[in-house]
């Protein structure tokens, strides 16, 4: 990987994965509370990749019909947070949240609403936790829903070209008892990586300065 500006050192990557882990763990605990069932999580991955490469990573098993709830965020660094899953599992996810007592018509009726609010809760939990850990403030947009393949979700054809490098953090989740799996992902624009490096290093320095024996 050759990125001129702001390549992350090993310790920076570690710290970032740990910070992301705290955020997505909060997100997963929120999701678990909403569905009332266990949610399994993978180890988070942190990569600097092109938008196009990131878009391929979320098309697992070549499933290209995806739904995402996304929120953009701004603050010390800017980007987008996304909750992504196969379109075929959308109604099952909604059903797991609104409860099995609702009819299929009700579930279809509520789909957009329920996805937006679920995304809002999960992504806010993730971003707010990261902001708190870093002692920074982030502003978040309202949630919106996007349907399409990975390239559509990550705007590979958009004003920022697909060849542009982004910082991509993701974790996959699996709702054990239901056939629902997906990703919680953060996509950060590269111009803000320099800012991110400063922030991550502040976080690392704060840990190193903690008196020995201090826990939590």
């Amino acid at each position, binding site marked *: 990987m050759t990125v001129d500006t702001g390549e992350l050192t090993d310790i920076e990557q570690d710290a970032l994965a740990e910070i992301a882990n705290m955020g997505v763990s909060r997100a997963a605990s*929120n999701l678990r*509370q*909403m569905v009332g069932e266990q949610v399994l999580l993978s180890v988070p991955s942190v990569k600097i990749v092109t938008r196009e490469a990131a878009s391929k990573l979320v098309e697992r098993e070549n499933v290209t019909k995806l739904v995402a709830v996304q929120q953009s965020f701004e603050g010390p660094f800017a980007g987008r947070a996304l909750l992504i899953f196969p379109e075929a599992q959308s109604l099952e996810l909604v059903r797991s*949240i609104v409860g099995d007592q609702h009819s299929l018509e009700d579930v279809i009726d509520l789909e957009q609403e329920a996805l937006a609010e679920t995304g*809002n809760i999960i992504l*806010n939990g993730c*971003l*707010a936790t990261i902001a708190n850990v870093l002692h920074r403030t*982030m502003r*978040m947009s309202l949630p919106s829903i996007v349907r399409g393949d990975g390239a559509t979700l990550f705007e590979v054809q958009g004003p920022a070209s697909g060849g542009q490098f982004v910082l991509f953090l993701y974790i996959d989740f699996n709702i054990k008892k239901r056939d629902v799996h997906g990703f919680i992902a953060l996509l950060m624009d590269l111009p803000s990586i320099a800012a991110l490096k400063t922030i991550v290093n502040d976080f690392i320095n704060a840990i190193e300065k903690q008196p020995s024996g201090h826990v939590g």
Partner: protein
Amino acid sequence: MQYKVLIVDDSKLARMVMASALRRIRPDWALVETTNAAEALTAVSGGAVDIALIDFNMPGIDGLELVASIRKTHPNMPVAVVSANVQNEIIGRARELNAGFVPKPLTDEALAAFLSGAALRLKKVTP
């Protein structure tokens, strides 16, 4: 004592969740639902609202701005901001406005604690 609770949230699902929790915790209290700040202010100025539960992330005027508007005419009304945006800054701003903070996903425990405190405060104001 029965009170009237105002729910303000642009999401129908979120209003359903708040309303059903409220019915479990305080089945005899009345509730009124609105979907934005303008409707909420109309309901509040009508004078029939005792307690308000307000979403933070709404199109147009956000929940904290709405609380600030309500405070101009109702400095003592028990109000809680209900949000998944658990950033220290958001919770701090709610406190500054003398409002509670109830995190989403909403739990009966968190809502019940806020409502108990609210009922106590209302009793003190109108003995």
